[in-house]
């Protein structure tokens, strides 16, 4: 478990200080994937930096599995991917991964196997693996960054904008790696502006604004607080659909694009809604669950 208790961090001094984190308290349960959301300059990267031991909080305490964040035991079980990979660009991808495998305490005899497996996981072929990092595109750097972070299947994964700058295939690969880490029980903290990706992989999100934790929303499981079913019908049929749902006792809000957000989103409610629409001869184009993170992001902190 990752625990953050009343952490405050201020940059600068002599009257020109900026409070990057203000008494932030949160917990990430073992095996949970937590998304950090907030505008630029909100304090997300500072929080990650503190969790990784790069920065020291002015006040408060942080622990990972009950130990100090810079404990070597914790670090041996940590994977980290920075937003921009600033590593020795003269290294080949293979040597970069091999260096990090050895640095993480991996068995030297298994270096080659692990490096190839990690590269395969993120879709980097042999030719790409032997290119120098300076010849990598942004997307390739992000992929090898994820491969590096997931080397040795770490228990704790800290990812900062892992899919930033990647093409749709790269985004899917990064997502698959995060989901694979989730499946094997890793505890993940993900900082990303890609709300759709956050929604797909995170169990919970916290909003950070001006250094403060303003909101926490559970996206999955029994306690899911934000997930709502969205039924999409042809735009011209939205009003008919809303009326058909209302006649069946199902409350819904209609958007201009034909999306109807159901007030109640249990599986039974969704089934009832689809049936009501079918009976009213309204074609159902899509049924999905949405946490409306974008809407939440636009709303900002609760008043």
């Amino acid at each position: 478990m990752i625990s953050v208790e009343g952490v405050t961090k201020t940059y600068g001094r002599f009257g020109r200080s900026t409070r990057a984190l203000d008494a932030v308290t949160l917990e990430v349960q073992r095996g949970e994937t937590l998304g950090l959301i907030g505008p630029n300059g909100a304090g997300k990267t500072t929080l990650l930096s503190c969790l990784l031991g790069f920065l020291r909080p002015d006040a408060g305490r942080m622990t990972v599995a009950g130990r100090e964040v810079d404990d070597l035991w914790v670090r041996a079980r940590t994977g980290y991917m920075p937003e921009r990979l600033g590593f020795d660009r003269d290294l080949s991808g293979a040597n970069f991964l091999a260096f990090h495998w050895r640095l993480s305490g991996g068995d030297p005899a298994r270096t080659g196997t692990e490096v190839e497996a990690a590269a395969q996981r993120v879709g980097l072929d042999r030719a790409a693996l032997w290119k120098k990092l300076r010849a990598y595109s942004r997307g390739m750097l992000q992929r090898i960054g994820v491969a590096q972070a997931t080397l040795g299947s770490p228990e704790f994964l800290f990812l900062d904008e892992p899919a930033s700058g990647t093409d749709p295939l790269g985004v899917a690969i990064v997502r698959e790696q995060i989901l694979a880490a989730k499946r094997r029980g890793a505890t993940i903290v993900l900082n990303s502006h890609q709300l759709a990706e956050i929604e797909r992989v995170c169990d919970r999100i916290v909003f950070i604004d001006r250094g403060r934790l303003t909101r926490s929303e559970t996206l999955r499981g029994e306690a899911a607080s934000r997930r709502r079913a969205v039924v999409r019908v042809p735009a011209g049929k939205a009003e008919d659909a809303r009326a058909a749902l209302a006649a069946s006792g199902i409350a819904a809000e209609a958007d201009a694009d034909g999306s109807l957000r159901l007030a109640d989103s249990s599986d039974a409610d969704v089934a009832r809604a689809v049936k009501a629409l079918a009976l009213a001869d309204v074609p159902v184009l899509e049924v999905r669950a949405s946490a409306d993170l974008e809407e939440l992001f636009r709303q900002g902190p609760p008043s």
Partner: protein
Amino acid sequence: MVHRFLRQKFSSGGIVIALSAMALLAASQIAGTGGREGSQFGTLALLILAAGCVSKDASGGALQMILCRPIRRSDYLLGRYLGILTGFGAFLIGASVLGIVFARGILPLIGSTARPVAFGELATELAAAFLGGIASAATILLLSTFLPGYGDVLGFILLTPLATLPDLAGKVLRAPWLERVGQALRENLLPSLDWGAVLRGRDPLGAPTGRWVLAVVLYLILALAVFSRREFAYGQD
């Protein structure tokens, strides 16, 4: 860590060219003096090797990727220090070998009469240059833990004139106590030791040697203390 340091340095074309030029200059001087001089180019080579030894890693983000692994900060710092010394040692040996090749192979070919290489003298010169480098590398390492970019080398170059300031101020202000403070600072923080003479047996366990050892230990401890406490931001919120 030592291997990574050497790879970082020797994979840069600019650094290889600069070190090669230094090695050629040192070799020609070694050849010309029969191995009795040539170590002054070693100081320049050391500056090239040690420049930005920690600061460049910190500003580029590589340090953060290393420090999130199970590596002690002290291990990283020691790796950088040993890397500088290994590179410096290799430079000195390479320049000496080149000097011998010049003296024995090239100078006779062009009809120049060089002094025969005195191997004992050359070995003493080499060892003296290397020992001098130990203190310089420790000083640059310390400066690199908190100065950005190549500020470490600049700081190192400015240290000597800065250290004479209290002494000078004492003379100008006719304050003997300030002169004494300046002198003590210079002697203890920037001890100059003629390692050539020490290696030839002149007072090897004297006070200057002791001050030199203390200064090196102090610089390394300070470097570790500063580096252990230092924070490394890696991006924008």
